[in-house]
């Protein structure tokens, strides 16, 4: 880490400005869908892919705390870029010898990573076979980071790899089914925590994405309720709507505070950091779901239309909630850790 800490609020502003200009959130909902092809390159030009690379490896030496506002703004904008998987991969590549070339290509925007859990694959020395379903950004990636007992990198352009696009309800993201048939897999000599680090990075990225989207969705719903007139008054003056909005605001602020704290816990590797990141993912994505579900109801008939943007947020929230596992799987995975920690708090 360098002494130079980038001002995260400045980063947030600059991200928001760029994304307001570059992202058309309806592009992929158009017929036929349009791609925001240029955005990823512009992010690379701004050096975002170098943010967390250590200075001695020609990066900017920042911690995850610098990525958090970017993830939030990407969520707010409903942007469609393969950023999180790439940055999670960069976290482990930075700690591995002989990976500086890949790291440099991530920095320039050439190398793009998707991440998948690979426990079900047949791993035979340096070859992998099997099917990976629903890999986020799989069709945009040049490389796959495979999480198994060890971590592997698979070049997706080689023979033995077939990437099939999956059409999802949330069009702001892309999933792919990846078929590996004796595909070359390079093992990474990582530390014991590498898998947990990648998972925690992705959990926090989704949590931040959810916060940004939830904040924007709630803001837009409140604005709508302030202008929509029925019974000669704005519907936002009705207590039935105001009280639900207030409850959602409280939930959002609690999720935000938890997530910010979880990002710091991750950077400091505070005790329990991995399950804390999972808690943030759970809380933030479920709050996002709650806000976007209510937002359609707040909008009434117009919210039920394809034309209105309500469903863009709702569908992204619903996918966020499932990424990495169902909320129930998440809870079951972290419960033993949470219960032990809670009991340890005994005065």
């Amino acid at each position, binding site marked *: 880490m360098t002494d130079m800490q980038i001002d995260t609020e400045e980063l947030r502003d600059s991200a928001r400005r760029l994304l307001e200009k570059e992202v058309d959130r309806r592009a992929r909902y158009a017929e036929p869908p349009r791609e925001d092809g240029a955005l990823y390159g512009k992010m690379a030009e701004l050096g975002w892919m170098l943010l967390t690379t250590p200075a001695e490896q020609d990066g900017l030496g920042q911690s995850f705390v610098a990525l958090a506002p970017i993830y939030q703004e990407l969520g707010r904008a409903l942007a469609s870029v393969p950023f999180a998987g790439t940055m999670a991969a960069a976290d482990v590549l930075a700690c591995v010898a002989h990976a500086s070339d890949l790291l440099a290509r991530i920095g320039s925007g050439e190398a793009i990573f998707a991440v998948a859990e690979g426990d079900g694959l047949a791993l035979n020395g340096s070859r992998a076979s099997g099917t990976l379903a629903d890999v986020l950004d799989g069709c945009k990636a040049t490389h796959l980071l495979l999480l198994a007992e060890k971590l592997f990198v698979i070049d997706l352009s080689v023979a033995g790899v077939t990437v099939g696009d999956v059409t999802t309800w949330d069009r702001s993201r892309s999933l792919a089914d990846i078929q590996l048939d004796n595909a070359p897999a390079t093992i990474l000599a990582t530390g014991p925590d590498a898998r947990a680090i990648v998972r925690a990075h992705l959990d926090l990225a989704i949590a931040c994405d959810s916060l940004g989207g939830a904040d924007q969705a709630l803001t837009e719903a*409140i604005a709508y*309720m*302030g202008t929509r007139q029925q019974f000669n*008054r*704005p519907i*936002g*003056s*009705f*207590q039935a*709507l*105001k*009280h639900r*909005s*207030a*409850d959602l*605001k*409280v939930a959002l*602020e*609690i*999720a*935000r*505070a*938890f997530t*910010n*704290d979880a990002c710091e816990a991750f950077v400091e590797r505070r005790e329990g950091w991995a399950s804390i990141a999972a*808690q943030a993912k*759970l*809380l933030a994505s479920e709050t996002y779901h709650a806000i976007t579900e209510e937002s359609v109801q707040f909008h009434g008939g117009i919210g039920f239309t394809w034309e209105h943007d309500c469903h863009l947020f709702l569908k992204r929230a619903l996918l966020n909630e499932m990424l990495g596992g169902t909320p*129930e799987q998440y*809870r*079951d995975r*972290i*419960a*033993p850790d*949470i*219960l*032990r920690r*809670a*009991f*340890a*708090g*005994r*005065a």
Partner: protein
Amino acid sequence: MSVEASRLNAVRAEVRQWLAANIPPDWREQQAGDNIEGFLASQREWLRRLVSAGYATPHWPGQWSAGGGRPLAEQVAIFEEIARADAPRMMLYFVSLYHAAMTLVEYGTEEQKARHLPAILNGEIWCQGFSEPNAGSDLASLRTRAERRGDHYVVSGQKIWSTLGQFADWCILLVRTDASGPKQAGITFLLMDMKSKGVEVRPIRQITGDEEFAEMFLDEVEIPVANIVGEENQGWKVAQTTLGSERGLALVELTERMYGSLWRLVGLVTRNGEEADRLDDEVRRRIVDITTRIEGLRALIAKLMTNRIAGSEAVGDASIIKLGFARIQRDFTSLGLRLNGMAGQRFSQYTLGAGYETGNWMFDFMNSYQYNIAGGSNEIQRNIISERVLMMPREKQG
């Protein structure tokens, strides 16, 4: 580490050490719900110890208390340490040390301060006479009237929800001195001696069976004009100081206590937090959820206090944490009651002055309505959040 941070750590270490040596180990037994005398004696003794250590009044100006003059960050640290050590709450003296004292510090005359502030350190008990049967959420519509006759006000009316009013020596009282203008403009703030003729106090038995509040019937009570705080008809403004006097510290303490009592919940269903994998999935998931919400609330309160210390608090922040706390506390105690099964349905003795974390889940659950109703009900907080934070349009005023 910054100078402030290491200073705070030093304060924490001091407080922790002091608490370890001074918390009466049997305070829960002494403050059992069926032993009011024991409760009063235990609270008196706890106040005496805290005052002599300076930890009862970190928020007072230094001239009135040797332990005073501490910045808010240190006040927060002291409350957190008290909560973490599971010390008794200063239930009987909270209104005295915060609401009464801080109002006097801000608006009291020199005579009033000299008379009452040292007395409060010696255990003078105050209660609050604000709410009325018909002035709850709409406090400013209060009707207890005061007429000036010579050098006295003559006060008649009814007050309600005075915390431990049956034990109070003095009362901070809001009365109506002018009914002709806007409701906020005719309110006056008085100090009432509870031994005055015409004051009748009746404890209110709550749904817990406990008597933590009282109602007061005032029949032609004479209060000297010298006992006015601020100007006549300016009492609403003075009352805002009273209501803001604890600056969020109560919520810091209560949240920390709730966090610190998660082990009780886990202890209901596991052996010492272990063997969690043998539990029913749904039970474990609920514990994960309530833990996460409590930890999130704790992070949010920490951020609010940081902002408050820096003077950058936003409008409505206090309402967000008040509503968040109230809802989470009810869900927490409700879950505890459920996990306690039939055992929770059997009456067992509860502890007074332990907040909402006595381990008696039925008592704690019933008691949790308190925070959801008092100090601006959840519904009032939702109005504030929607109108002042989210800037949603106001309803037509009735």
